[in-house]
């Protein structure tokens, strides 16, 4: 198989890698806020349950979680899982990343001095206004570097989808490598991930600069 053949096949998997990356962010970034609020809830039961789930999600392998999400419906309820593979990946990734994002959001929120809330309160802001107009803009600036770290990890983690036989870039790479007995596909895949992450870093740095206005 020629180099260009490999390149072509591997890049066809790139689209699926990008889809996992994109959908995971779309769902996990907002979901993280819900989890963060649950974790910070004054209700001890809600915050306790949320803390428990976060610890499970962060304390067990993502690969294992993907398998549970993918095979679970069939093993537990004998549901058909024919079209479930891609949704299962997105569900598994989104829940796992939401747990990480939630802890990042929480750290950002707790970094805001209580005086900001008091000032907003005295000035008559409602709780919702206080959050969106005063707290959130400051939190986003604080957490951006930590979020960037997670996003870079996500680019690489997309390769875990191969564990439930989803055809993305890494599973194709592995297939070619074992049939052609060459390291070349791995080099190509490495280059793809690396360039992908260069782009991610570039975008996030631009964003950080834009938020550094004060």
């Amino acid at each position, binding site marked *: 198989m020629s180099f260009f053949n490999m390149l072509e096949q591997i890049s066809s998997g790139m689209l699926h890698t990008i889809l996992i990356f994109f959908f995971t962010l779309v769902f996990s970034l907002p979901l993280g806020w819900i989890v963060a609020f649950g974790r910070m809830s004054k209700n001890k039961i809600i915050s306790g349950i949320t803390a428990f789930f976060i610890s499970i999600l962060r304390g067990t392998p993502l690969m294992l979680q993907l398998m549970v999400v993918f095979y679970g419906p069939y093993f537990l309820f004998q549901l058909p899982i024919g079209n479930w593979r891609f949704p299962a990946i997105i569900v598994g990734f989104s829940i796992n990343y939401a747990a990480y994002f939630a802890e990042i959001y929480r750290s950002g929120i707790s970094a805001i001095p209580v005086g900001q809330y008091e000032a907003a309160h*005295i000035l008559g802001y409602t709780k919702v206004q206080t959050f969106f107009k005063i707290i959130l803009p400051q939190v986003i600036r604080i957490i951006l570097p930590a979020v960037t770290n997670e996003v870079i990890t996500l680019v690489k983690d997309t390769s875990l989808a191969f564990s439930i036989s989803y055809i993305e870039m890494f599973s194709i790479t592995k297939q070619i490598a074992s049939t052609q007995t060459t390291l070349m596909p791995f080099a190509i895949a490495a280059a793809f991930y690396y360039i992908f992450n260069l782009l991610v870093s570039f975008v996030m740095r631009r964003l950080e600069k834009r938020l550094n206005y004060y």
Partner: protein
Amino acid sequence: MSETTIYLEMNNIKKSFGDLQVLKDISLKVHEGEVLSIIGPSGSGKSTLLRIATMLETMDNGSIKYMDKEAASAENGSVHYAKPQALREIKKNFGLVFQNFNLFPHKTVLHNLIDAPVHVQKRNKTEVIAEAKALLEKMGLSDKEDYYPSQLSGGQQQRVAIARALALKPKVLFFDEPTSALDPELTGEVLKVIKALAEEKMTMVIVTHEMSFAKKISDRVIFMDKGVIAVEGTPEEVFNSDHSRMQEFLGKLKHE
């Protein structure tokens, strides 16, 4: 003073933190146009009293009225507030200037001033901007409206904070040790602004450690000690009082 309107009335305020009783049955009134200074040693409860008056802190017992409308009352630790809509209206009566300014760091000076009037009070933006600019001019900060708080000195930040409070047109303005975070040079510029407000008959309640300042601008002074009002009266009455704790307090300050 008895003929003027009473803006704030606090009755029988009690407050404990755990076993420590920081306020023991405090009552006070603030009249229209009056400057009231609250002085006293650290831990005497003066800041707590201010935080209760502005409803940042709950009380265990007592009542708070603004413009003769009850904002909150408490008995045996359970606080009862006015209905949300009424409470919102009542809270419009006062503003607060914090010790460490608490400006919004992500907003420019001008936006710190106009955001609440526009988005909370829903007032006309052009009008609010014009008023905010006039306020900044009064504070000597006209050239700083596009700056972010972090680009200003502490004294400038505190003057912005005063302007921000005034932008909402409160009837009573509270100050919680407004110059404690500032060095002497910057303290002067903030005190000058407060003095100018006093001359305009702005009703103010000032918790402060600046004794000579309190003496100069106050209509009335309260000396608090161990959770009670130990001495109360005109500046002359309070500073010349032969109350032992008051003398001790002033003596300590002189030796500092």
